[in-house]
């Protein structure tokens, strides 16, 4: 995917510059005067090698940046690529509509399911409307409503996590942000249908977990999941928000870290250079992984699914003693 330079991350730039050069040679070639195919071939090899060099050994802070990349596929991009017949449902029936969490019924390989996720915006205007993917209590209550709908109609639930966190604002506190999240955690624990949660970008603390209590928890390769943002962590620990890079390391928040610590079930591979370089391929990989897990969970009845989810989260924690 051609990527605009304005959105590029620093460590992506050398690669983009090379790709731009290749493009230029290509257009010169097609204009017919000189044949550059030899040079193009060389540069393409070089680009491939460079890409491998950059992306084979990303540090945690680079993964944080990728997980927040403004060109990264968002919830709706995956919905459009993986599902059909998406029927978005709105509102919490209590106070308001919250566009930072959206969802509705859709079909997955023809089978009706409930899909639900945080939605970030790509433009400034859209981000204002989506509140940068930071839900207010209404968003969590809508999510709960949709999950309970899915349970009533025996539809599997697929959630997609991508949020910096629940919104910290006056209204959000007045209307019970903590209560809304807490209730979702309990409700999700008791859902008698298969639940698969995938972190597609940022998994920011309780605001992420509030739609993340799945029988299976998956993470896209360049996503993160953390109890606190590296920036907030660094301002508390080091009294300096610019130490976020160090905090990211201390928090061990990448998909790889979480897989190693057995907190998540599977890492979904992203195309070389990250999901934004080839969103279709990223969606294909995610769809394939979801298909596999949904098939396995579909053999369980409601009680078994609840017990399975209980056992999964019951086992999380590291301590000694009885």
């Amino acid at each position, binding site marked *: 995917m051609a990527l605009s330079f304005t959105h590029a991350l620093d460590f992506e730039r050398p690669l983009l510059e090379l790709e731009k050069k290749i493009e230029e040679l290509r257009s010169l070639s097609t204009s017919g005067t000189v044949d550059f195919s030899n040079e193009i071939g060389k540069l393409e090899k070089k680009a491939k090698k460079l890409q491998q060099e950059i992306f084979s050994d990303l540090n945690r802070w680079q993964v944080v940046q990728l997980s927040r990349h403004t060109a990264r596929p968002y919830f709706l991009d995956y919905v459009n690529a993986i599902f059909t017949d998406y029927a978005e449902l709105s509102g919490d029936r209590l106070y308001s509509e919250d566009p930072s969490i959206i969802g509705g019924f859709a079909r997955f390989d023809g089978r009706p399911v409930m899909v639900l996720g945080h939605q970030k915006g790509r433009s400034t205007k859209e981000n204002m409307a989506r509140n940068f993917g930071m839900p207010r209590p209404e968003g969590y209550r809508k999510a709960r409503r949709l999950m309970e709908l899915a349970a009533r109609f025996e539809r599997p639930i697929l959630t997609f996590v991508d949020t910096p966190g629940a919104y910290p604002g*006056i209204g959000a506190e007045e209307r019970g942000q903590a209560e809304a999240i807490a209730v979702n955690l309990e409700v999700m624990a008791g859902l008698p249908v298969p639940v698969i949660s995938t972190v597609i970008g940022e998994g920011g603390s309780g605001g992420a977990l509030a739609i993340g209590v799945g029988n299976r928890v998956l993470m896209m390769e360049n996503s993160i999941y953390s109890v606190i943002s590296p920036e907030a962590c660094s301002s508390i620990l080091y009294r300096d928000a610019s130490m976020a890079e160090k905090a990211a390391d*201390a928090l*061990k928040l990448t998909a790889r870290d979480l897989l190693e610590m057995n907190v998540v079930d599977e890492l979904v591979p992203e195309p070389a250079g990250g999901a934004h370089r080839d969103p279709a391929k990223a969606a294909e990989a995610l769809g394939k992984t979801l298909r596999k897990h949904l098939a396995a969970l579909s053999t369980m009845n409601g009680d078994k699914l609840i017990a399975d*989810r209980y056992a999964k989260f019951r086992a999380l924690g590291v301590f000694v003693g009885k």
Partner: protein
Amino acid sequence: MPAWFSKKPKILSSDPNEAELERNSRMEGLWVKCDDCGEILYRADLEKVLNVCPACSHHMALPARARLNALLDPGSFEELDTGLEPQDPLGFSDSKKYRDRIKSTKKNLGENDAFVSGVGKLDGQTVSIGAFIFEFMGGSMGSVVGEKVTRVFERAFDLKCPAILFHASGGARMQEGIFSLMQMAKTSAAISRFRAVKKPYLSVMLHPTTGGVAASFAWLGDVILAEPKALIGFAGPRVIEQTIRQKLPEGFQRSEFLLDHGMIDAIVQRKDLKSRLAQLIGLMA
């Protein structure tokens, strides 16, 4: 998690002029200064009234064990899960290694982590009960706290008895990273399961109850009580101020504010908590 609630009652040494000494010996000090009205109080007298200022009725921190002793029938409390001790799953380190921080805190307080729990009797009725030890890293919730809370509900499930929790916590313990976050899901799942026995879970929010603790089991009480003027909410006031770039109104996120907004059932004076909890259990269990 955050450090904005570090306001603690100032406890003076026997000579009120020794301002510097007071800090080191405040736990042993004979005199306590109310950090609301400034009244100098004799510690032994203050303890008799459960650390509530007789002059202005300000509710100062009450250590978890003293609270459980005052609440439960004499000699009935049996502490459980005392062997659980924290680990350092991330190898976390800031100005100090987490491992060393745990070690020194354990030594200073004589506690393994930030939670005490077990079974006891309240007016003759068996209850599964737990309370945060706020002095232990701000009552932050890591794996041990999450495990102990989970067991409070599993025990209440097995015994088919009411559960009571006293919360005083800044939220999840970031030094345990993702494991701290996952305690929110674990504890809430245990509550979901506990509901089947149809016994009440009474949640008591003390100063402060915020972050991941507020946003999981604390707010899942069948009935939620709070002590007066406790700071209760999801995000810390400083985080909110930084986000919205304006000062928060007076009384924001305090118990009275939450009651006004329909987010808790009642504010109860500390001296009345025992009778109120017993009353609710009588009506619900």
